[in-house]
C-alpha cells in the first residue's frame, strides 16, 4: 500500500454563505479549514440582503449566527482581505500561496470599538456594502455584523492626518503595514467565490446610471433594509420621496443573447420578495413586475408567487419592456407591448432592474491559478452527474460560481462539496484539529440571581413596532435584574463580546435575550454565555419578534405591553434557572439510508467512502428508483446508465449492506444510537445506526384529466421516454401539455422537472424524426441556469411553444377516433386546433406515499403536500430539528438530477459531522426523581415511551423509580403523571412555569 501523504486541511476560497457552510461542515467533522475571503469581511451578498424568500426571514439575522460560528471556531482560520496567488501540488497535497493585502490595522490588536471610524474627518467615499447609497470614511467597518470585526483603512484616499492613530487606545493602526505572503498546506480546495451582479449600464435603453430613479435590485434591497442608508425608509434616490408606484423589470442581463443567454434562476423569486416587502412597507404602493416567464420553481416559491398576486395585490405584466424614459417631475415611463400586441406606456415613480448573476470578474485569473476549466459563460465547468467536482481532482466547487442559484441550493451544494473533500481526506480526519476549550464553569448555586437582559431591536423588525427604550426602562425595574442593554442586533459578533463583558462586569449569573426565536438563536447565545463561564442552561429567550412585533405590526402600544409581559415572564423563569449537567452519548459509527434511488445510493457511497458502514433500505425489489425509467438527459449522458453504475458500485462495496424489498417497521433511539426495525420479506431485524438519511424519492402523478388512461395515445413524459428509447415512436404530430397536476389548487407547487423533461424529449423526437411537429403547451417555461440554452435550441429547431392561461386550459376531445387539442395561445391571441398522433402529459412529481408513515415513525414534520419539512428552508435545507436525521432528493421537493446529487452529498456531509465523533451531546434538560417523595407506584414507567424510567428495589420492600438519563427525551409527561410530585423536569419545572403564569398575571 502506498504511504499516505495527504493533508487533513482544506482551503475554502470565498466567504459567502456557500464558503461559510462548507467551512463549518469540514471544521465540524475533523478538518482544519482556511477560509479565504478577498474582501475585509465574510458574509457575501447574503449579508446585504434585507429579507430572504420565501419566508421573509431577516437575512442578516439568520446569517449572523453562522458568521459568529466561523469567527469563533477553533478549527477555522479566517484569512480576509487576501487573494490566492499560486497553487501547486495535487489532490491530497496542495501548497497554496496567499497574498494578504494590508488593512493598515493590526487584526490582533483591533477590538472593533469603532472610535477611529467616528474620528475620521473624511466621510465621502461610497460605502460598498450599501451599494454606494451612503458614504463612509477612510477608515471603516464593512458592516455592523462584520466578521472579523476589525476596521480597515482605505489608504488610497487617506491623507494620513493621524486622527485614528491618536484615538486608538489599542495602538492597532499601522498606516505603513506591508502586504504579507502566506503559504499553507492543504489536502483539498473548495472554490466558493460566488457571483457578481450584472451591471445594467450597458443596456442603454433602461437608463441605469443616467436616471437616478432606475436602480438595481440589490440597491433596492439596501434601500428597504432597516440598517441600510435610509434606515429602512423607502426613499427614492432623486428626491427622497416615497414612491407611489414601482416597476420591476425582469431578466436584465439574463436570457438575453446580447448579454448573458442563460437564466439567472433567482431573479423572479427575489423580485416577488421585494414586491412583497414593498407592500409590507406600504400596501398603497402600486407594484408591477414586468416578466417573460415567472420562474418560481423552488420549494414553496410558487405559493409565495401566488400570495404576492392574491394577498398582496402585486401586479404581473408579461412582456420585455423596450425602454425606460424619464419624463416630467421625474416620472419614469416604461414602454412595452402588452399581451394583445398593443404598444403601451406606463408611468412609475421608481424602476428596479432585476439584474442577473454573472461570474465574478476575478475568476478567469483564479481558474488559471487553480488549473480548473470554466464553462462557456465563465462559470465553473461541472457535469450533471458530478455537480461539485471541477475538472481538477481535489478541487471542488459550490454555490453561485457553479451556476446561478439561490441560498438553500448553495448551502446544500456547499455541504456536498465538503463531503467530497472529506471523502478524499478521510484518512487524515482529526490530524490537524483542536478541541474548543471553555473556561471552567462558575458555581452559581446558592447565589442570589443576577439577571442580565439584552433586548434586540433587530434593525427595525422589533424596534419599528415595539417601543424598545420604554421596554428597557421597564426591564430595569424587574426583580433581580442587574443589567439591561439595548442592541441593534443582539446576534452580531460584537454583541456576543458585550454579553460576555457584561457577565463579567456585572457579575451576572442568568442571561435573558429578548429577540427572535430560540429555535434559531438559542444555540448561539448558550455558547456565548458558556464562553463567559456560565452553564448554558442559565439562559432563556423571550420571543418578541416572531411572536410579537411581526404579528402585531399595526398595534404598537399593545405590542409594547406584550413585550414587557413576555420579558417579565422570562425573567421570572430565569430567576429560577439551575445549571444542568450535560450528558454525552456514544455514537454508533454507521448510517442508515432510507431509499435506494440515485439520492440514497449516492449518500450510501459517500458514507462508505469515508469509512462508515451503511444500511441501505429499499422498498422495491430493485435499487435505482425513478431514474431507471429515464433514458436521456440534456447533457447527453443517460441517467439509466449512471444509475446502473451506481448500483454496481453500491452492491460491490463491502461497507454497504443493501436490503431490497424491505420496509421500516419501527424506529427507536436517538442521535448517535438509532435502532431501526426492518421487515425484509417477513423477516424482522433490528439495525443500529448513528444517523438516518431520508431519501424516499417521489412518484409521477397519474393524470385524471386529458383522456389519460382512456385513450392509449395519451401518455406521460416517462411513458413517452420509454417509447422513444425502444424506438416505438410512430407519430408525426405530438402535443405536450405542461403543468398537468402541478400549479393548481390541489397541488400549488411547481414540479420543477417537467419543463426540462418536455424540452429534452421534444429535442429527442426532433433528433429521431426531424419532420415531426412538436407543440409544447405551457404556462411558464422554467429552464433555470444553463438549461435555458436547450429551451433556445428547442425553439431554433422548430418546436412550437404555445402558452395557455391557467383559466383557459387546453381542451382535449375524442372526435370519431380523432384526438383533438384545442388551445388558445396567449402570445398570439388566437385559437389552435391540433390533431395529434400522441398527446404527452407533463405530469406532476408527487411526494412518496410512504412519507406519512415514515414521518410518524421518525417524528419529523411533513408539509401539507407530503414532502418533508426541513429544519430551516434557507440555511438548514438538509437537516431536521431532530438531531441525527437528514433528508435529500425528492423527499425534500421536486428537483433536477444535479441538485439531487448535490443534496445527497450534502446529507452525507451533515451525517459525517455526527459519525466522525466518538460521542455527541444529548439534551441535558431531563427529569430527576426525588427518591424520598417517590412511592414506587410505577405510573411514570407506564407513561414513558422511551423506557427511561424503571422501578428498582433500593431497600427490601421499597420500590423507587430510577432514571436512565440518556434515554430520557425531556418531554415531561411522567412528571405530570406522577401522583406524588416526585418527578421534576429540569429547565421546565413546575415552579418555573407557575412563576411565568404568575408574572403574566402581575403576581410575584
Amino acid at each position: 500500500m502506498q504511504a499516505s501523504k495527504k493533508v487533513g486541511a482544506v482551503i475554502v476560497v470565498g466567504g459567502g454563505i456557500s464558503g461559510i457552510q462548507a467551512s463549518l461542515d469540514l471544521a465540524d467533522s475533523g478538518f482544519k479549514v482556511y477560509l479565504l475571503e478577498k474582501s475585509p469581511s465574510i458574509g457575501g451578498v447574503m449579508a446585504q440582503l434585507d429579507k430572504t424568500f420565501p419566508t421573509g426571514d431577516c437575512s442578516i439575522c439568520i446569517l449572523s449566527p453562522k458568521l459568529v460560528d466561523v469567527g469563533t471556531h477553533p478549527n477555522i482560520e479566517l484569512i480576509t482581505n487576501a487573494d490566492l496567488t499560486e497553487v501547486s501540488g495535487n489532490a491530497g497535497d496542495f501548497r497554496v500561496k496567499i497574498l494578504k493585502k494590508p488593512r493598515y490595522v493590526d487584526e490582533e490588536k483591533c477590538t472593533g470599538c469603532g472610535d477611529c471610524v467616528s474620528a475620521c474627518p473624511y466621510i465621502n467615499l461610497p460605502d460598498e456594502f450599501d451599494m454606494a447609497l451612503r458614504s463612509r470614511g477612510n477608515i471603516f467597518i464593512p458592516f455592523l455584523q462584520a466578521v472579523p470585526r476589525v476596521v480597515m483603512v482605505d489608504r488610497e484616499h487617506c491623507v494620513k492626518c493621524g486622527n485614528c492613530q491618536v484615538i486608538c487606545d489599542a495602538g492597532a493602526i499601522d498606516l505603513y503595514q506591508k502586504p504579507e505572503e502566506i503559504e499553507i498546506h492543504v489536502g483539498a480546495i473548495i472554490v466558493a467565490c460566488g457571483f457578481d451582479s450584472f451591471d445594467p449600464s450597458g443596456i442603454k435603453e433602461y437608463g441605469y446610471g443616467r436616471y437616478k430613479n432606475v436602480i438595481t435590485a440589490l440597491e433596492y434591497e439596501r434601500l428597504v433594509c432597516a440598517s441600510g442608508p435610509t434606515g429602512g425608509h423607502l426613499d427614492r434616490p432623486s428626491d427622497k420621496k416615497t414612491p407611489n408606484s414601482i416597476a420591476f423589470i425582469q431578466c436584465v442581463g439574463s436570457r438575453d443573447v446580447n448579454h448573458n443567454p442563460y437564466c439567472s434562476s433567482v431573479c423572479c423569486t427575489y423580485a416577488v420578495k421585494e414586491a412583497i416587502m414593498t407592500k409590507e412597507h406600504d400596501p398603497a404602493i402600486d407594484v408591477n413586475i414586468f416578466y417573460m416567464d415567472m420562474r418560481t420553481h423552488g420549494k414553496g416559491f410558487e405559493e409565495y408567487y401566488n400570495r404576492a398576486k392574491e394577498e398582496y395585490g402585486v401586479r404581473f405584466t408579461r412582456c420585455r419592456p423596450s425602454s425606460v424614459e424619464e419624463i416630467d417631475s421625474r416620472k419614469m415611463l416604461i414602454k412595452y407591448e402588452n399581451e394583445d400586441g398593443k404598444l403601451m406606456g406606463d408611468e412609475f415613480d421608481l424602476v428596479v432592474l432585476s439584474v442577473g448573476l454573472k461570474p465574478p470578474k476575478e475568476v478567469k485569473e483564479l481558474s488559471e491559478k487553480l488549473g480548473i476549466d470554466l464553462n462557456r459563460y465563465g462559470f465553473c465547468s461541472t457535469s450533471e452527474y458530478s455537480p461539485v467536482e471541477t475538472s481538477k481532482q481535489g478541487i471542488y466547487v459550490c454555490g453561485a460560481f457553479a451556476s446561478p442559484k439561490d441560498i438553500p441550493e448553495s448551502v446544500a451544494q456547499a455541504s456536498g462539496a465538503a463531503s467530497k473533500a472529506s471523502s478524499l481526506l478521510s484518512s487524515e480526519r482529526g490530524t490537524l484539529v483542536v478541541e474548543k476549550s471553555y473556561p471552567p464553569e462558575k458555581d452559581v448555586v446558592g447565589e442570589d440571581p443576577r439577571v442580565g437582559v439584552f433586548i434586540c431591536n433587530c434593525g427595525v423588525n422589533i424596534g419599528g413596532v415595539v417601543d424598545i427604550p420604554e421596554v428597557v426602562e421597564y426591564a430595569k425595574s424587574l426583580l433581580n435584574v442587574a443589567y439591561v442593554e439595548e442592541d441593534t442586533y443582539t446576534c452580531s459578533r460584537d454583541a456576543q463580546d458585550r454579553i460576555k463583558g457584561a457577565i463579567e462586569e456585572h457579575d451576572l449569573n442568568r442571561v435573558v435575550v429578548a429577540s427572535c426565536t430560540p429555535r434559531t438563536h438559542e444555540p448561539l447565545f448558550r455558547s456565548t454565555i458558556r464562553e463567559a463561564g456560565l452553564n448554558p442552561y442559565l439562559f432563556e429567550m423571550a420571543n418578541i419578534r416572531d411572536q410579537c412585533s411581526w404579528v402585531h405590526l399595526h398595534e404598537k402600544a399593545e405590542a409594547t405591553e406584550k413585550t414587557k409581559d413576555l420579558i417579565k415572564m422570562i425573567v421570572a423563569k430565569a430567576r429560577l434557572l439551575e445549571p444542568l449537567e450535560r450528558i454525552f452519548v456514544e455514537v454508533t459509527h454507521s448510517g442508515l439510508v432510507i431509499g435506494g434511488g440515485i439520492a440514497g445510493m449516492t449518500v450510501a457511497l459517500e458514507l462508505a467512502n469515508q469509512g462508515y458502514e451503511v444500511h441501505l433500505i429499499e422498498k422495491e425489489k430493485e435499487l435505482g428508483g425513478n431514474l431507471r425509467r429515464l433514458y436521456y438527459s440534456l447533457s447527453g449522458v443517460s441517467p439509466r446508465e449512471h444509475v446502473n453504475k451506481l448500483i454496481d458500485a453500491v452492491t460491490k462495496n463491502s461497507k454497504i449492506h443493501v436490503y431490497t424489498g424491505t420496509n421500516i417497521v419501527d424506529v427507536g433511539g436517538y442521535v448517535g444510537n438509532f435502532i431501526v426495525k426492518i421487515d425484509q420479506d417477513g423477516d424482522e431485524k433490528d439495525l443500529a445506526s448513528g444517523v438516518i438519511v431520508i431519501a424516499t424519492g417521489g412518484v409521477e402523478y397519474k393524470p385524471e384529466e386529458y383522456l389519460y388512461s382512456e385513450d392509449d395515445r395519451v401518455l406521460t413524459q416517462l411513458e413517452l421516454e420509454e417509447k422513444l428509447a425502444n424506438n416505438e415512436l410512430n407519430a408525426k404530430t405530438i402535443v405536450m401539455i405542461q403543468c398537468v397536476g402541478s400549479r393548481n389548487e390541489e397541488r400549488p407547487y411547481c414540479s420543477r422537472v417537467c419543463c426540462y423533461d418536455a424540452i429534452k424529449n421534444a429535442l429527442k423526437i426532433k433528433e429521431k424524426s426531424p419532420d415531426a411537429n412538436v407543440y409544447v403547451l405551457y404556462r411558464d417555461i422554467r429552464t433555470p441556469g444553463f438549461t435555458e440554452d436547450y429551451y433556445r435550441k428547442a425553439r431554433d429547431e422548430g418546436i412550437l411553444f404555445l402558452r395557455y392561461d391557467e383559466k383557459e386550459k387546453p381542451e382535449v376531445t375524442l372526435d370519431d377516433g380523432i384526438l383533438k387539442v384545442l388551445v388558445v395561445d396567449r402570445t398570439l391571441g388566437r385559437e389552435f386546433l391540433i390533431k395529434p398522433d400522441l398527446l404527452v402529459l407533463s405530469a406532476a412529481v408527487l411526494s412518496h406515499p410512504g412519507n406519512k408513515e415514515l414521518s410518524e415513525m421518525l417524528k419529523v414534520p411533513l408539509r401539507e403536500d407530503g414532502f418533508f419539512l426541513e429544519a430551516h428552508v434557507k440555511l438548514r435545507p438538509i437537516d431536521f430539528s431532530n438531531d441525527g436525521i437528514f433528508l435529500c432528493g425528492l423527499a425534500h421537493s421536486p428537483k433536477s438530477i444535479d441538485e439531487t446529487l448535490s443534496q445527497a452529498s450534502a446529507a452525507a456531509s451533515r451525517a459525517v459531522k455526527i459519525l466522525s465523533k466518538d460521542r455527541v451531546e444529548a439534551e441535558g434538560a431531563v427529569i430527576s426523581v426525588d427518591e424520598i417523595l417517590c412511592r414506587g407506584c410505577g405510573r411514570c414507567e407506564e407513561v414513558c415511551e422511551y423506557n427511561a424510567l424503571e422501578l428498582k428495589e433500593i431497600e427490601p420492600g421499597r420500590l423507587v423509580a430510577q432514571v436512565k438519563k440518556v434515554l430520557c427525551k425531556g418531554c415531561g409527561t411522567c412528571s405530570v403523571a406522577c401522583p406524588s410530585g416526585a418527578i421534576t423536569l429540569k429547565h421546565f419545572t413546575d415552579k418555573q412555569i407557575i412563576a411565568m403564569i404568575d408574572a403574566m398575571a402581575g403576581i410575584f
Partner: protein
Amino acid sequence: MDPKIVAFCCNWCSYAGADLAGVSRMQYPPNVRIIKVMCSGRVEPSFILRAFEVGIDGVLITGCHIGDCHYVSGNLRAEDRVKMAKELMKTLGLEEQRLRLEWISASEGEKFASVIKEFVEDLKSVGPNPLGKGEASCP
C-alpha cells in the same frame, strides 16, 4: 373587555407554527402570551387552574397533531388532562370554553393565527374570568 390568554405551545410543532405565523406576518390580536413547553403532555392541570386562579381569562394548549407527537403519545395525554381540567373547572363555576386544546403543526402558521382570533372572540362573548376580580385585564 379584552381577554388575557396564556398559550402553552409544544416546542416541536405549535411553537414553530407560532413562529411561522410571525415569519409570514400573519396578524392576530395581541392578547396571548406563549409559554414554551417541550410537549403538550407536560401541561399539568394545576398550571391551568393556577392561570384561572390568578385571573387569566383563557388557557390555550397546543400540540402536534394526533399521530405526529414528537414524544409519541404526549398529545394523547394532554387530551386526557384537558378533559380532567374541564371537569374541575365546572366545579369552580368556570365556563369550559375558557380552556381550549388545538393541534397545530409547524407548517400551520395560518391556523395558529386563526385559532387566536377565534379564541379571543369566544372569550369576549364568555366575559371576564369570574375568579379574576378584574386585576389581570389585558392592556
